[in-house]
């Protein structure tokens, strides 16, 4: 390749009929082989844990008392509530979700800075479900060689039956995936009963249908194409990584020159260089994305570590040390070749920076969650008119207030204004008690909108006076307050 002359581009354009090259390539079917080893075991465990969480979490109960659902995790779209164990999120608190997403992406960056595409290889739903679908495929259609042979031959009745069975099992898993999804949006046991007795709302069946379709297509048919062509993360990841990040690496310093065992033994006897790689291709055979890790770091590689397992078992068999493919860095491979010391640095500015932001964002979220009040007041000044002159010459301002009661029982609140000496308060949609205080009563886990009229009986001197609204819970004295202005004509 190196001796290919780089011809002049203009010459190339005129001379090369490269337009005849196909613009689209047929997909190369991948038949990953079964493998055993440390990383495979880790992947099995993570698969069981993540899928277990996904499928069974909606059934966990969490007692919140009356007036609230008892499902630990529930997205209640109809009532605009999100329940997560002891946390209840209202729509206006959606910034917690934003915070979680920020944390998630930072965690992804940190993972990437430490050891590359850990997310892709072990935790991504696409990887987990594809792994499960491959397991089903192997279980029904046999391992790599058998599947390749059956696909090459003319379709036999037995192969057709096995393929049908495989697709049936895939569809069942996909259907269960969609089924579990909708359980997060309604009371799970009730919905399961309704689904089984065909009484569930059409929307539930529709969503199950959509997720069955996407799961079956993405994990059964698209597989590694999703990672290579559809997912943006490999591209972003490549821009975020650095030379210290651990990656699944073929140690070519030790492996090259590769050759058959016999040939390399002979070379060694002659005192010539010979590597440990016996070119058995096991690393390629087990790869779920069909790459050759020996070509180095590449976009298609999801770094699941299965080639490490495959290579290690071969190395053990031929009596060589493990770790010809391992989590390592290209920088260290080069260092070893040049006799320099290896550099391994997990604690470095990049990881410290990510960990620092995670700590900051995390503590902001925890603090705001801990200090969050169950009482909430917002006030909006009338825009038109800004003020009204009454018949006796006093000035009145209208406000729309919204009071949120996040308690699970009905609460009564008293609303007071501070900042005006002779303020009189009136409330439309509330009541006035004997002392003339404005009282609002808000039902459990609800909000109430009311109109508040504030009248200054002494003619105000300033065109705008700071006004504070204070809402006090009559049962426990909790306060919420917010500021606004009292507007009056210029004097």
């Amino acid at each position: 390749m190196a001796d290919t002359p780089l011809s002049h581009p203009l010459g190339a354009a005129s001379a090369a009929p490269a337009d005849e090259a196909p613009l689209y390539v047929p997909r190369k079917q991948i038949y990953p082989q079964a493998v055993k080893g440390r990383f495979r075991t880790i992947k099995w465990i993570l698969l069981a844990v993540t899928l277990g969480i996904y499928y069974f979490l909606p059934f966990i109960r969490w007692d919140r008392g009356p007036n609230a659902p008892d499902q630990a995790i529930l997205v209640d779209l109809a009532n605009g509530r999100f329940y997560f164990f002891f946390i209840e999120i209202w729509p206006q608190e959606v910034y917690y979700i934003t915070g979680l997403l920020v944390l998630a992406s930072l965690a992804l960056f940190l993972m990437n800075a430490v050891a590359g595409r850990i997310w892709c290889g072990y935790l991504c739903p696409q990887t987990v479900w594809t792994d499960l679908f491959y397991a089903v495929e192997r279980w029904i259609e046999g391992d790599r060689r058998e599947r390749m042979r059956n696909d090459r031959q003319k379709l036999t009745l037995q192969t057709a039956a096995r393929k049908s069975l495989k697709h049936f099992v895939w569809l069942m898993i996909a259907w269960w995936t969609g089924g579990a999804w909708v359980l997060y949006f309604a009371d799970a046991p009730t919905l399961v009963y309704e689904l089984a007795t065909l009484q569930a709302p059409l929307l539930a069946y529709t969503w199950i249908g959509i997720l069955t379709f996407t799961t079956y297509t993405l994990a059964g048919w698209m597989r590694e194409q999703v990672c290579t062509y559809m997912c943006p993360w490999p591209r972003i990841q490549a821009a975020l990584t650095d030379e210290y990040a651990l990656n699944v690496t073929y140690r070519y310093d030790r492996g090259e020159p590769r050759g058959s065992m016999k040939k390399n033994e002979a070379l060694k006897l002659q005192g010539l260089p010979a590597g440990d790689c016996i070119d058995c291709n096991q690393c390629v055979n087990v790869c779920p994305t069909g790459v050759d890790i020996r070509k180095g770091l590449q976009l298609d590689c999801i770094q699941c570590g299965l080639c490490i397992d495959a290579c290690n078992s071969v190395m053990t068999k031929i009596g060589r040390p493990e770790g010809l493919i391992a989590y390592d860095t290209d920088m260290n491979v080069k260092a070893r070749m040049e006799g320099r010391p290896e550099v391994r640095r997990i604690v470095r500015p990049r990881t410290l920076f990510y960990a620092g932001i995670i700590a900051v964002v995390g503590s902001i979220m925890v603090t705001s969650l801990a200090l969050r009040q169950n009482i909430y007041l917002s006030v909006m000044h009338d825009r038109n008119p800004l003020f009204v002159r009454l018949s006796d010459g006093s000035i009145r301002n209208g406000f729309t207030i919204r009071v949120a009661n996040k308690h699970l029982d009905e609460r009564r609140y008293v609303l007071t204004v501070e900042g005006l000496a002779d303020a009189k308060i009136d409330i439309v949609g509330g009541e006035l008690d004997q002392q003339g205080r404005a009282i609002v009563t808000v039902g459990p886990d609800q909000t109430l909108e009311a109109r508040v009229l504030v009248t200054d009986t002494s003619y105000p001197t300033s065109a705008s006076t700071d006004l504070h609204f204070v809402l006090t819970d009559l049962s426990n004295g909790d306060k919420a307050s917010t500021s606004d202005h009292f507007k009056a004509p210029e004097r």
Partner: protein
Amino acid sequence: MAHETHEQVDAVTGVTTTGHTWDDIQELNNPLPRWWLWTFYLTIVWAVLYAIAYPAIPLVSSYTKGFLGWHSREAVVADLNALKQQRSGMTAKLAASSLDEIKQSPELFAFARAQGKAAFGDNCAPCHGAGGAGAKGYPNLNDDDWLWGGSLAQVEQTIRFGARSTSDQGHSGTMPAFGRDGMLKREELSHVADYVLSLSGLPIGKSADLKAGAKVYADNCAACHGDKGQGMQELGAPNLTDKIWLFGSDKATIMEGLHNGRGGVMPAWHGRLDDTTIKALTLYVHSLGGDQRP
């Protein structure tokens, strides 16, 4: 890779090129997967089917209707009907309850105010302003001064039948054109204007003859505006002693009213709006200022 082909190979990546070069930048040939191509064809098929199924192609005076018969106007009507259906329970309650009953029920009151606000924006805002702030000649609905009364029942009456409207049940009563119709002379108008200004403590000129003004007032104005200028809601005669002036409180404006008369029209909404909408409007307008006094 240096075999005998016509293909150009990029030396850095080992990828063939398409042969296209712009400013010495070569286009590498990294082909997309074939399913991508099929997806592209599928979108074309989709577009054709869509054009057949839905309204799509404009013709000279019409357009292709599409065999599904979907129509955007009908879709809107269907949505509106669905909305009405959804609200029918509350609307029925609103229709069955009296104004006072609605005001006592927080749920109904909130519903009526929300509906009234929308109806106000559609029907009333052109004259009374988006927040009911009014304008010169169009009353501010946020204050406590009501020409025809500010109780729930009075507000409803005014909305339903209007003032000086085409409805014979509407409020009548106009301010006569004392000057134009020759009932009063110009200096009499000036005297009574000064007197009216003095009723609410507004500054008057030094040359004002309040005694003459009071006499003109007693003879011509007191029948409607009251002995003390306190007004009369039955006739829509405004209170002349308060701080609220529909047209303005300077002498020229008052003179203008005396000379030409006043008679702003509030249309009758009965028959144009249904009963529940009028109820909702009443409660909304009443909630702006209503009969509350400071």
